[in-house]
């Protein structure tokens, strides 16, 4: 080998080492080094063309992280699905389903990208927005964009609507919706929500519910494995430990006051719904015992006298406990049994609040101007939000609250159905809402809406 090639090889090797370590050097130093190497490059060709040619990849390696190369790599990292979808679908721009399909493809791809730009999400919005009747695939795209914006609660409502309320739609869209729901459930740790999946008409959803609730049949396992357990990295998800189990009975103190305090603390610190339910009932029972038996017996009198305070402090304590219980009931769903004492008071208070929420929802829906850009996606969101509030309200408030709520919700939902049929051509929403109303009408005995059973287009004709 000639001396010139040897001389040029040394800085080259050093540069390669630098490139592997990716050191943060000043830009001027980098320019000097790389410029120098590039200037020496022709010398290698002059001395030996074979050697010069063989060393070409090394010269290119020296160019690595050069601004030009960076530009190229950044360009290569663009969301190509966006461009491909645009290129492939431009003849079908007038067809809603194709455009929604492009939106879904792009959204599904963007969900896994850390380097997505706001313009990418804007592309998806523009694609999914125009169709009048948003199909399952458009709804999924909308849900994914909402999730990427950080609003997981709204996305959850949309995906729930897709999975629980409807049985048809694009297979891939439904699969994405299921995947989101299960992952979100795992993230929140609210594994009791598997009930939601278990109620679904979708066999795959029921299979997942069975797997998560620990009642795995061989058939269910096969189906779940097709969907989620087939992934190589799924070993990292601790499915078995995540399965909800029965609450083990904690050892509580014998002293009534200590027991009440322990239950109260357990309720405020509980992480799961079953634990919350357990402690809620125990706390209510024990506080009732304290305030109905111990306080009249004068359990706190000595302490009150010693501190020199008013005896009303005892009732202030009861108010504070009631506020804590109401906070828990408001934030989380707790299964309530027929109650008396402090539990009944809390229940009444929270039920009134939720009824007021439903009332607000109805007013908002009446005042709402339908969106022309996003189709009827928001109708689905409103419908699911109402279902959630309604369910909470009547579980807490009992059958009377249910009847009152139904009377309030009925005209709004009828309007919603009429709009879904006439303006949005969304017969799935109309069908879902009417079938739910029919069930509720039978439950609360509302005769006027029985007509929906046979003539659900009557509302649309008005």
């Amino acid at each position, binding site marked *: 080998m000639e001396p010139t090639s040897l001389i040029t090889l040394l800085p080259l090797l050093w540069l390669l080492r630098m490139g592997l370590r990716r050191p943060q050097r000043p830009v001027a130093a980098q320019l000097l080094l790389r410029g120098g190497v590039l200037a020496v490059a022709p010398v290698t060709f002059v001395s030996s063309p074979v050697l010069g040619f063989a060393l070409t990849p090394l010269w290119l390696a020296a160019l690595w992280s050069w601004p030009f190369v960076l530009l190229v790599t950044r360009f290569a990292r663009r969301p190509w699905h966006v461009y491909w979808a645009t290129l492939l679908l431009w003849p079908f721009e007038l067809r809603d389903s194709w455009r929604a399909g492009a939106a879904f493809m792009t959204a599904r791809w963007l*969900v*896994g*990208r850390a380097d*997505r730009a706001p313009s990418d999400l804007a592309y998806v919005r523009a694609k999914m927005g125009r169709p009048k009747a948003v199909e399952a695939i458009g709804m999924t795209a909308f849900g994914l964009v909402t*999730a*990427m*914006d*950080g609003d*997981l609660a709204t996305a959850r409502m949309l995906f729930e609507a897709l999975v629980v309320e409807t049985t048809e739609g694009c297979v891939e869209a439904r699969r994405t919706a299921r*995947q*989101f729901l*299960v*992952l*979100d459930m*795992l*993230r929140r*740790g609210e*594994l009791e929500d598997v009930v939601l999946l278990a109620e679904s008409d979708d066999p795959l959803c029921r299979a997942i519910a069975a797997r998560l609730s620990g009642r795995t049949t061989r058939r269910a396992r096969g189906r779940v494995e097709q969907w989620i357990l087939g*992934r190589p*990295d*799924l070993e*990292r*998800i*601790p499915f078995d430990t*995540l*399965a909800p*189990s029965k*609450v*083990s009975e*904690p*050892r*509580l*103190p014998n*002293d009534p006051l*200590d027991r009440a*305090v*322990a239950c*109260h*603390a*357990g309720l*405020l*610190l*509980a*992480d*799961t719904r*079953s*634990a919350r339910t*357990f402690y809620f009932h125990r706390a209510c029972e024990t506080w009732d015992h304290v305030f109905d038996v111990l306080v009249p017996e004068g359990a*706190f009198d000595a*302490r*009150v006298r010693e*501190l*020199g*305070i008013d005896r009303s*402090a005892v009732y*202030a*304590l009861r108010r*504070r406990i009631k*506020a*804590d219980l109401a906070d828990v009931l408001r934030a989380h769903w707790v299964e309530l049994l027929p109650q008396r004492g402090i539990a009944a008071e809390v229940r009444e208070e929270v039920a009134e609040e939720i009824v007021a929420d439903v009332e607000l929802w109805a007013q908002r829906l009446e005042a709402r101007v339908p969106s022309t850009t996003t189709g009827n996606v928001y109708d689905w969101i409103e419908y699911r939000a109402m279902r959630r509030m309604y369910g909470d309200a009547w579980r807490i408030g009992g059958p009377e609250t249910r009847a009152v709520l139904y009377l309030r919700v009925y005209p709004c939902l009828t309007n919603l159905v009429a709009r879904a049929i006439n303006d949005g051509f969304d017969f799935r929403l109309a069908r879902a809402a009417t079938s739910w109303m029919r069930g509720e009408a039978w439950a609360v005995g509302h005769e006027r809406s029985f007509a929906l059973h046979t003539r659900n287009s009557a509302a649309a004709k008005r």
Partner: protein
Amino acid sequence: MSERASQAVSPSDPRRNPFFVLGLASQATATEIEREGRKLIAQLEVGSKKASTYSTPWGPMARTVDVVREAMVSLRDPQTRFQHEVLLPKDSAVTAPRDVTPPASFDAFEVLGWNLPR
């Protein structure tokens, strides 16, 4: 410090009971409360590591100057003090049921490659 100690807690959280924060028994006098509170604030201001956490039956919690001040204020009022005294668990064997929530580091979305804002 455990994961729980670093997370935000509401004022009604039993782990934030002022008696736990100051490390005192429910029979402590007003003088003892003042003395202990000032001592803790001074320790926290010079960055004492020992004073930066306090223990509760549910594990250690982070102690800051604000938390100590809040505890002192709430114990100065006899009515509030009475509430905290009553709600102070005497028996530390308050056992929570088996924890079935996934560990805090586990993010199902991340595992399946969904990149969503936290």
